[in-house]
């Protein structure tokens, strides 16, 4: 087979259907990555227009351009869209597009999940934009503090759009994170051991784990606030035992890691692009990996620094002040590693490098003001003023947007296959950078002069007028710059001349393929010998195209890909990926039905959509795997690999593991909330405590033991080629008992009586939900077994993971519910 025939054959197998309809059913990472990028860019334009409205309002004193009812929606939506609908999806899109290529593989771990995530993002985002156009957008600020955002402060539908729309969008963040983790861990080119990972992959591994642990508290908070608003469950109402501070803890438990979740992908781009621009390799690769990892964890110990002014005792604040300064150390390590890299090489001044220099200037200033606001006393003055507004725009624009623009211009030849010909980009660079500093530098000073954020007009004689006029002018200059970038990219993508492969002479594998990239990414999977495969062997792209790597001979229309052992990168299993399907978009639509039903209080929609989603999920899972035990298949070079789905640690097992990590953080946050209310909320202890009785605890203990033992019995039976029925039945009975135990808690409490009762409802509901999910999975397994699919243990292990989780959650959750009475 020659290179051209191989290309045609692989294209036929991996590409989406032609035309725009193909985009609705595509599951290919090239399509989905670009769809994410386009959608994120659209939301950026919308939020940018809102920013211009804000600057128009504040350009002159006593402006009557917008009243507070409009202005409050505008700034709330500006922040919300930029954070949730622009920043996160943008780097997700870039990662979905680039990561498989850099890792030397053909797609992400769960292609249909990528597509499902994208549609959740698109639909959830549309919900928010609809509210904006209809004039009923959220107006309590992007961090939505109750009671202002609850029924007391906002009786209308506005906050519901935020709570439900954002939660809907978060599905995409969680699913992308699961994909990224599993892809980096097991989907790589043969031989790519952990020390040979492209640095961007390390960064994204850290970011993805952070998303899995950082987003659940927000999802929990949104759920609780929505339950309070919809059903009067008083989690944040102090009279009924709630506490509005609980929201702040949950929100910032997400919100601070979020800042680093946004910064680290950008740092990954800098670490990738900067060495290429300096014609050298990254200085201190291991140090940078360690810095990124410690930054990832340390950033979870900072959340209270958004709450210095809430009256928490000084010692509590001091912990967080110390942690907030400590987090600057790994940041400093990276900054100096990058500067050292430039010293090491021969820097060339291309447009991506210009953006990186703008990043340095801007981000270092933002970091320094960040250390300032980490000082408790200074924050008492600067908190909620324009000093903080200026600070975080320096960090987010300087630390995210500028590196992303460096990345955009760096990978533009890859996206388009063209050489940049029209040079609008340089003009845009100066407009944006000068406009940005013109907007925000002096706003620091306005903040110190007492200008609060979120005020809808400035008074004459306040001393802030000139600063704000200049800021507005700077803002419009910056907006023109961004418009030029869009035009520049559009024009260059459409009409510029064809460029050569690997124009920057980079070392990473995304440049080892033709541009724009073919749908299958790599015609064969090369053996990787170092961190810089294209420096080792400049002819590698040719050899890949000639099919000299693994999986070079496409087989009977299957999307073939292989997994590797985590540490060594030794190939271990073969995976057949699913092909184009309408399932993800349909599933996302029906999931949307659930959120819309909640939003417009059409509660009859909820059970319908839950049933439909369940049915689709069963269909989705049923189509995977095969009823024949295929055994090892040839992958080239005389190597034969067994199919991964039958193994103990299948990709599905890994995906479940990390999904359960996020799930565990969600549950942990819920238990934290329970403990928090117990210690801090003023109206505790509650008037009546739940009596455990005898039935509930017995059901829980017995059920957990049965479920735990039953699924293991089934597991053993499958491994010995025996019938798994008894084990499956026992497990199912155990899960039913766990569900019944949860129901006893629900039956003995009134959901809206006190925050205590409301919390127990959510805990018991959570247990009930997981017992049901694991039960459904067990039924599924039984059906699979009777249809002859269960010759190997792969699927059993996935269900075993979920069953164990349900049992542990039941013991912990129901135990926490019964504990207070047992102690008293």
């Amino acid at each position: 087979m020659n290179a051209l025939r191989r290309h045609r054959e692989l294209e036929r197998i991996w590409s989406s259907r032609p035309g725009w309809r193909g985009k609705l059913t595509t599951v290919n990472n090239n399509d989905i990555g670009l769809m994410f990028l386009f959608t994120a860019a659209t939301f950026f334009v919308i939020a940018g227009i809102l920013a211009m409205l804000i600057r128009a309002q504040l350009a002159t004193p006593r402006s009557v351009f917008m009243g507070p009812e409009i202005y409050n929606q505008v700034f709330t939506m500006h922040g919300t869209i930029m954070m949730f609908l622009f920043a996160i999806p943008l780097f997700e899109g870039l990662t979905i597009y680039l990561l498989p290529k850099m890792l030397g593989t053909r797609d992400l771990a769960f292609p249909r999940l990528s597509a499902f995530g994208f549609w959740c993002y698109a639909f959830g985002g549309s919900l928010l934009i609809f509210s904006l156009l209809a004039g009923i957008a959220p107006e309590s600020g992007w961090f939505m503090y109750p009671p202002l955002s609850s029924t007391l402060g906002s009786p209308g539908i506005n906050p519901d759009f935020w709570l439900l729309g954002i939660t809907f969008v978060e599905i995409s963040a969680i699913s992308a994170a699961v994909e990224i983790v599993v892809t980096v861990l097991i989907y790589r080119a043969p031989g790519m051991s952990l020390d040979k990972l492209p640095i961007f992959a390390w960064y994204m591994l850290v970011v993805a784990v952070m998303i899995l642990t950082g987003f659940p508290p927000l999802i929990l908070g949104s759920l609780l606030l929505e339950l309070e608003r919809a059903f009067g469950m008083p989690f944040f109402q102090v009279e009924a035992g709630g506490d509005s501070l609980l929201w702040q803890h949950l929100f910032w438990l997400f919100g601070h890691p979020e800042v680093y979740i946004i910064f680290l992908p950008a740092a990954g781009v800098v670490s990738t692009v900067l060495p290429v621009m300096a014609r050298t390799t990254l200085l201190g690769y291991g140090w940078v990996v360690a810095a990124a990892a410690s930054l990832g964890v340390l950033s979870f110990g900072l959340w209270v620094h958004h709450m210095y002014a809430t009256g928490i005792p000084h010692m509590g604040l001091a912990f967080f002040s110390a942690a907030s300064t400590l987090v600057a150390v790994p940041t400093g390590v990276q900054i100096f590693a990058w500067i050292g890299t430039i010293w090491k090489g021969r820097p060339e001044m291309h447009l991506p490098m210009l953006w990186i220099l703008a990043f340095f200037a801007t981000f270092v200033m933002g970091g320094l003001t960040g250390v300032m606001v980490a000082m408790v006393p200074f924050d008492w003055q600067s908190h909620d003023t324009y000093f903080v507004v200026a600070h975080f725009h320096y960090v987010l624009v300087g630390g995210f947007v500028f590196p992303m623009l460096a990345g955009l211009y760096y990978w533009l030849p890859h996206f388009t296959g063209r050489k940049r010909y029209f040079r609008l980009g340089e003009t845009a660079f100066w407009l944006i950078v000068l406009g940005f500093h013109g907007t925000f530098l002096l706003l620091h000073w306005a903040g110190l002069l007492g200008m609060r954020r979120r005020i809808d007009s400035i008074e004459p004689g306040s001393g802030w007028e000139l600063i704000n006029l200049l800021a507005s002018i700077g803002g419009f200059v910056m907006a023109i710059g961004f418009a030029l970038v869009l035009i520049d990219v559009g024009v260059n993508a459409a009409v510029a001349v064809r460029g050569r492969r690997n124009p920057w002479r980079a070392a990473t594998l995304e440049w080892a393929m033709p541009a724009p990239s073919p749908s299958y990414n790599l015609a064969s999977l090369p053996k990787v010998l170092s961190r810089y495969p294209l420096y080792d062997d400049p002819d590698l792209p040719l050899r890949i195209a000639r099919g000299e790597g693994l999986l070079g001979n496409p087989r009977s229309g299957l999307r073939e890909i292989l997994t590797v052992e985590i540490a060594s990168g030794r190939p271990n299993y073969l995976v057949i990926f699913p092909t184009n399907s309408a399932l993800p978009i349909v599933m996302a639509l029906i999931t949307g039905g659930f959120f819309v039903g909640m939003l417009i209080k059409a509660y009859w929609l909820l059970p319908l959509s839950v049933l439909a989603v369940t049915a689709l999920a069963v269909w989705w899972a049923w189509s995977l795997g095969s009823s024949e035990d295929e055994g090892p298949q040839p992958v080239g070079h005389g190597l034969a690999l067994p199919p991964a789905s039958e193994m103990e640690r299948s990709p599905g097992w890994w995906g479940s593991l990390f999904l359960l990590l996020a799930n565990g953080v969600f549950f942990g946050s819920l238990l934290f909330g329970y403990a928090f209310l117990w210690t801090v909320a003023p109206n505790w202890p509650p008037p009546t405590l739940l009596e455990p009785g005898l039935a509930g605890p017995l059901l829980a203990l017995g059920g957990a033991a049965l479920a735990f033992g039953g699924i293991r019995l089934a597991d053993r039976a499958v491994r010995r080629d025996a019938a798994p029925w008894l084990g499956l039945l026992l497990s199912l009975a155990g899960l039913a008992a766990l569900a019944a135990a949860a129901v006893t808690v629900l039956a003995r409490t009134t959901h809206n009586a006190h925050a205590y009762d409301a919390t127990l409802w959510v805990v018991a509901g959570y247990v009930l939900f997981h017992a049901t999910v694991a039960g459904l999975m067990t039924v599924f397994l039984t059906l699979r077994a009777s249809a002859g699919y269960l010759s190997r243990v792969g699927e059993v292990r996935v269900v075993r993971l979920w069953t164990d989780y349900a049992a542990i959650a039941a013991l912990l959750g129901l135990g926490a519910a019964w504990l207070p009475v047992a102690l008293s």
Partner: protein
Amino acid sequence: MTDILRISVPLTAWLAAFSAVYGLQGLVCSQRWADAGLDLTAGRIAMMVAWAAAVALQLVFLLALRSPRFVSRSAFVRWVSLMLAISALVATLWTLLPVVTTSACL
């Protein structure tokens, strides 16, 4: 899998200890602590014990990561996990230092 644990456990333990001491501090300053008949001195001692335990745990990780029984086969993982264990120890010492320097409940 075990390599991932080597890399992630010490810092995760820092986070757990940090959150636990912060929670303990909240408890010490709450009405529930007074209701239980305990005073601030008892509270500060409890926090200092927790801090010392967290530091001891980090030292154990550090020793374990150097011992032949737990060391990774990959030189790179060995080095990164050691660096991260050191940073977790520094983080434990640094971020919980206010336990002995700051007034407890003002």
